[in-house]
């Protein structure tokens, strides 16, 4: 992997993203460009399945940097996010020290808590200088953690340093590129947001979604793609508990080609609705007559457009 230079303008950023098969709009590119050039984390919020995590992956691929992913969960603590000591090896070391009676005890502590026994987790790895340029640190679904971890992140995000009591402070020579995502299952504290550039990733409009489908599911025919996108856009206008994300649209397209369909018909829609909608209430609402009605609307609109 060779390291590419950071994009030099918003247009560059847009090109870089599309080069990585990510169809972005200008607002997102602007936020990303700012965050890259000003060394501030980018905070991406949005519904599940709109492509937040994907941005970090594309960045890693296009810039040729290591991607360090920290998946958040409730109770995530410093020992799984930053570092941990290798206790087994430390035990062995203590036994060895006992066997060699001549070794002074004072050296034991500095020996045991040295880098040799340190297990590095994503955040510490991201701060390390490996000579491959700053890494990309993806802090995924931050809303899943609890407030104490958020508070801990404040130091990391503003100063790009962590403190290990036994070793001292580790500071990044070059700050990593940090992408934080959140599904908003909980509000993130303002103090975190203040340190980041914020961007709300929305559902794409029909045109962009068609573009995404063209990139992500090129095997799907032009006609079917249009129908799929129009149908999904219709669903998003409805009062559903969980609207289908872009990921679901792509899944649906793959599912339909897998089943050898070239166009939508009511039966097919009913059979494959589970790839689009993930709540029983929503499925029950759309299935049957509602699906046929939407499909009729979609078809007449598409025919009208042609």
């Amino acid at each position, binding site marked *: 992997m060779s390291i590419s230079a950071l994009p030099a303008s918003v247009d560059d950023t847009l090109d870089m993203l599309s080069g990585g098969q990510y169809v972005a709009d200008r607002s997102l590119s602007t936020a990303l460009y700012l965050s890259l050039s000003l060394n501030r984390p980018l905070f991406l919020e949005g519904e599940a399945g709109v492509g937040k995590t994907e941005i970090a992956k594309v960045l890693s691929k296009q810039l040729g940097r290591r991607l360090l992913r920290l998946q958040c969960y409730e109770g995530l603590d410093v020992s799984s996010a930053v570092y941990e000591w290798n206790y087994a090896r430390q035990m062995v070391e203590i036994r060895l020290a006992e066997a060699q009676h001549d070794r002074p005890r004072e050296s034991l502590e500095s020996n045991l808590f040295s880098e040799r026994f340190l297990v590095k987790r994503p955040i510490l790895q991201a701060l390390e200088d490996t000579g491959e340029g700053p890494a990309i640190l993806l802090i995924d679904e931050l809303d899943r953690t609890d407030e104490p971890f958020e508070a801990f992140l404040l130091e990391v995000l503003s100063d790009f340093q962590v403190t290990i009591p036994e070793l001292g402070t580790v500071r990044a020579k070059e700050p990593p590129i940090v992408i934080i995502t959140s599904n908003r*299952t909980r*509000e993130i504290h303002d103090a975190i947001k203040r340190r980041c550039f914020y961007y709300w990733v929305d559902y794409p409009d029909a045109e962009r979604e068609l573009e995404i489908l063209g990139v992500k599911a090129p095997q799907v025919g032009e006609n079917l793609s249009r129908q799929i996108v129009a149908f999904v856009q219709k669903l998003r206008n409805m009062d559903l508990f969980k609207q289908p994300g872009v990921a679901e649209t792509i899944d649906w397209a793959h599912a339909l080609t897998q089943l050898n369909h070239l166009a939508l018909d009511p039966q097919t829609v009913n059979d494959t609705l589970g790839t689009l909608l993930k709540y029983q209430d929503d499925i029950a609402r759309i299935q049957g007559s509602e699906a046929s009605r939407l499909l009729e609307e979609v078809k007449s609109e598409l025919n009208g457009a042609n």
Partner: protein
Amino acid sequence: MPDKNAPAPNLILGEADGGRLADNIMHFGRVLRRAGLPVGPGKILDAINAVTTVGVTSREDFYWALHAVFVNRRDQREVFDQAFHVFWRNPNLLEKMLSVLLPSFKGDEVTQQESTLSRRVAEAMAQEQSKEGEGSESAEQEEELELDATLTFSGREVLNNKDFEKMTTQELAEARDSIKRLLLPLGKVKTRRFERHSTGPKLDMHATMRASVRRGGDMILMRRKRPRQIPPPLVILCDISGSMDRYARMLLHFMHALTNDRDRVHTFLFGTRLTNITRYLRYKDPDDAIDRVTEAVEDWSGGTRIGQTLHDFNKNWSRRVLGQGAVVLLITDGLDRDGAAGLSDEMARLHRSCRRLIWLNPLLRYDQYSPKSLGARAMMRHVDEFRPIHNLESLSQLADALKHDHGMSRQDMARWKEMAA
């Protein structure tokens, strides 16, 4: 004290006013204390010192000197400001002070003239005045709490939904007490985070290693840890429609105290629409907070659309606030303008997404109450507990009940469900 501090050139406290200014400052301090500010004797001494240092040549200096001493939080400014302007109301204050130097306020005048005055300040004034004039009887009477069935807090004031700001300090104190007792019992939940504990179930390797190194590695002393426990998030959904009107004031204070007592409390009001008032309730001073709530909410005492508002809650908020095992307090009388349209489904969803759903219903104060309205029947099927909430007494009953049996008995709940079926 003038011998200690160099006296201001324009004022020697003990001489200039015959000692009355110090008295007045003391009385002013007591007024503030009654209005809820933390003013002790030390502060009053500080205030006298401060005024001596600054001097009383200008009203502004005088104001800010007292302000600097008595106010130490942002939300106390409003109370201080009101109290100051009423207490030291005479514009020719200084001349007066230097000549006659009588306390220049009259409690009765105050309550009549300053109709917009916060009830807490007015009450504090009246009390201070009556203590002075020995005629304390009438004031004492007025101040007494009347907790009758309709929950009109004070004999002389008709409870009005626009008048939330006029809760007395006595009421506040009572409400806070009840609420504090209510807080404890909502049992704690285990988190996935650990804390050190001498007999915890898990080995804390980090601490073990450090402890043994401290002893030179000869002995390895086990250190243990256990999951930390915290109270679960609390979500309050409170009905503010016409039929709930007379409870609204107390409930707002109840919610205010809850919001400020612990983390992770989210509060919503609903009538015909849903309003998130969590942020407004974060203001520490209850009067201030409730003012902001009254401003923000547009559907006071209108109709109720429980089904629709719960739908909005489920759709827009439930995923954001009901995570991590939240307990939901649903406060409503179950009277629905929409004839319970869609209510059952929404209640079912709400019930599925929280740890415990507690319905607090003020109508339960009637012995003969039975959940027969369409709304109540739809809701009853999906709640874990059903309890009264119509006065402070029922709040403490609720607290006691929750503390002792950690929930309602199954028979009680089954009986309610049967009635609603």
